[in-house]
């Protein structure tokens, strides 16, 4: 039908934007490699920065020697090795894991609910984890299980319980309509937040109240290898299951009728993905506290620049999320050293203006 080609196109501005966008979209695998490189650079810098500043070159040599790559004598103060291996590296690794999980989870929730406001915290992960953690802090729960300490375990269980409650409350006749889910989420989140605040209010101990507040705003100050080991299996299992469904998430961007007619078992797949993403986020949040904004914004930024294909969106969001949280955590612990800024403050202050800039620059629909 040649006549359609001679049809006037709808506005030249679209075309210009299109060319710009296509540079990103055509070369997207190159950008993924760049992001991977940037993550390694960021991680190195994150290990270098801190109360004791270690030159990045020394960081690489210490890590290299530890991994058995580099021979040669240790020409650095022995304290550096201890600081890196016991404190900074687990902290950077944990920041990367949490950032990756939150960003991927955000992308999954936005696709599953076909809603640009969806994020890991919408269906109770954050409020449930906060409530669980607050209970554990208030009643000084010292029990642990496996590698879990009391606060992390309570947060993990709280996150899963809240998600389960919201999801089952929203089910109507074997289906889970998105609007019902979001409304149930808003209500349960409000209830749990109120309960958390009440627990804080009823506490007489200012030190523990600060502990709760610190947890609510997110912090990786207590990171160690034990936490990495504890969280890793859940995060890896969740992310693997999600990656396996990357194409299905593309199909789910259409309405449910179309997804079903393309051979996707919609309700079953959605249920499976929600379990996977909830396990991974609950585990991440249980060690980091409620770090806001990464899960909401990173997938949007990636989608704005590189398009909505989840086979790319998921890994790229994961990398960008990890980079962002490593940078944010480095800023949190160095800007006002020796005091630590809450991580959630850094992610919001840095993330929101950048996101708004991108949103304003893009003149088209973004979702």
């Amino acid at each position, binding site marked *: 039908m*040649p006549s*359609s080609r001679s049809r006037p196109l709808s506005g030249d501005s679209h075309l210009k934007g299109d060319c710009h966008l296509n540079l990103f979209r055509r070369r997207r695998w190159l950008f993924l490699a760049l992001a991977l490189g940037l993550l390694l650079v960021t991680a190195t810098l994150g290990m270098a920065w801190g109360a004791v500043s270690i030159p990045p070159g020394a960081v690489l040599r210490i890590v290299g020697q530890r991994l058995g790559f580099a021979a040669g004598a240790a020409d650095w103060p022995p304290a550096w090795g201890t600081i890196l291996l016991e404190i900074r590296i687990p902290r950077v690794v944990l920041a990367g894991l949490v950032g990756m999980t939150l960003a991927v989870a955000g992308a999954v929730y936005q696709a599953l609910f076909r809603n640009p406001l969806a994020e890991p915290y919408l269906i109770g992960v954050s409020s449930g984890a906060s409530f669980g953690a607050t209970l554990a802090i208030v009643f000084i729960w010292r029990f642990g299980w496996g590698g879990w300490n009391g606060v992390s375990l309570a947060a993990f269980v709280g996150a899963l319980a809240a998600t389960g409650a919201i999801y089952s409350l929203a089910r109507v006749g074997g289906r889970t309509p998105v609007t019902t889910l979001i409304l149930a989420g808003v209500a349960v989140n409000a209830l749990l937040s109120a309960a958390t605040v009440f627990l804080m209010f009823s506490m007489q101990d200012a030190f523990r109240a600060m502990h709760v507040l610190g947890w609510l705003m997110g912090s990786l100050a207590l990171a160690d290898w034990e936490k990495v080991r504890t969280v890793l299996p859940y995060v890896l299992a969740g992310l693997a299951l999600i990656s396996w469904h990357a194409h*299905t998430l593309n199909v789910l961007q*259409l309405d449910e009728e179309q997804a*079903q007619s*393309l051979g996707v*078992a919609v309700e079953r797949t959605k249920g499976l993905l929600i379990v996977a993403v909830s396990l991974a986020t609950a585990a991440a949040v249980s060690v980091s506290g409620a770090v806001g904004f990464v899960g909401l914004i990173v997938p949007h930024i990636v989608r704005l620049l590189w*398009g*909505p294909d989840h086979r790319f969106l998921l890994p790229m969001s994961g990398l960008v999320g990890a980079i962002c949280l490593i940078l944010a955590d480095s800023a949190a612990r160095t800007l006002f050293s020796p005091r630590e800024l809450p991580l959630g403050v850094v992610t919001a202050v840095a993330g929101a203006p950048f996101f708004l800039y991108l949103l304003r620059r893009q003149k088209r629909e973004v979702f």
Partner: protein
Amino acid sequence: MKSEVNPLEVENLTFAYDGRTVLRRVSLQLMPGEVLGLIGPNGAGKSTLLRLAAGFFRPNAGTVRLFGRPPTQWPPRELARQVALVPQGAYVPPTFTVWESVLLGRTPYLGFLGVPREADRAAARRALEWVGMADLSERLMGELSGGERQRVLLARALAQEPRCLLLDEPTTHLDIHHQVAILSLIRRMALEHGIAVLVVLHDLNLAATFADRLALLVDGTLVALGDPREVLRPERLTAVYGNAVAVFPRPDNGGRPAILPRVA
């Protein structure tokens, strides 16, 4: 074996939704390579019949069989290789490119991790060429005109390589050039590839021109089924639509009817 079974067999189908009976004892068969046009006034149950054929609902009474088996009993992936549905005004996110949208049609064929193989790309390319959109494959869906969008949706359905195509008003909001282009293509696909097509059409003249047979649905009941010349009788149309019409046989098209409203 399978080729002996009709693509679609509907027998005494009754379906109620929210306590309202939408379809009453409907029976029809769809043959391979045939274009069956589904016509009738608004709310007659045309789209519902299409959805039942696609397996979205279970009949209250009677049977629907797709290639010999109720669609609700097919495994979803298997079913999607037999039947493609294009719902009316189907939503595709504006940020998808044309190519990405058409490649979604390959979903029931994709293997582990959903990576498209060369066969998948070839099928998508072929479908884009059929609908004349190959040059626009990098465009965003949000930038397309209504006719282009509709052609992309059709290409996605054809990329599924189905043996049966269910289309819900594929030509609404299109100008006559694009209406004819889409329906000619559908006819060609039926003829050349033996695809059975059940298509809901609003425009009686388009239905009369492009369908091999017509099924006229009124208030959930099938009142006529057969050759357009038989179905589109002026007295019947006048009774069904509540508006007097005149019907003329077209000498240029084997005497197929052309329908015009009468002014009182």
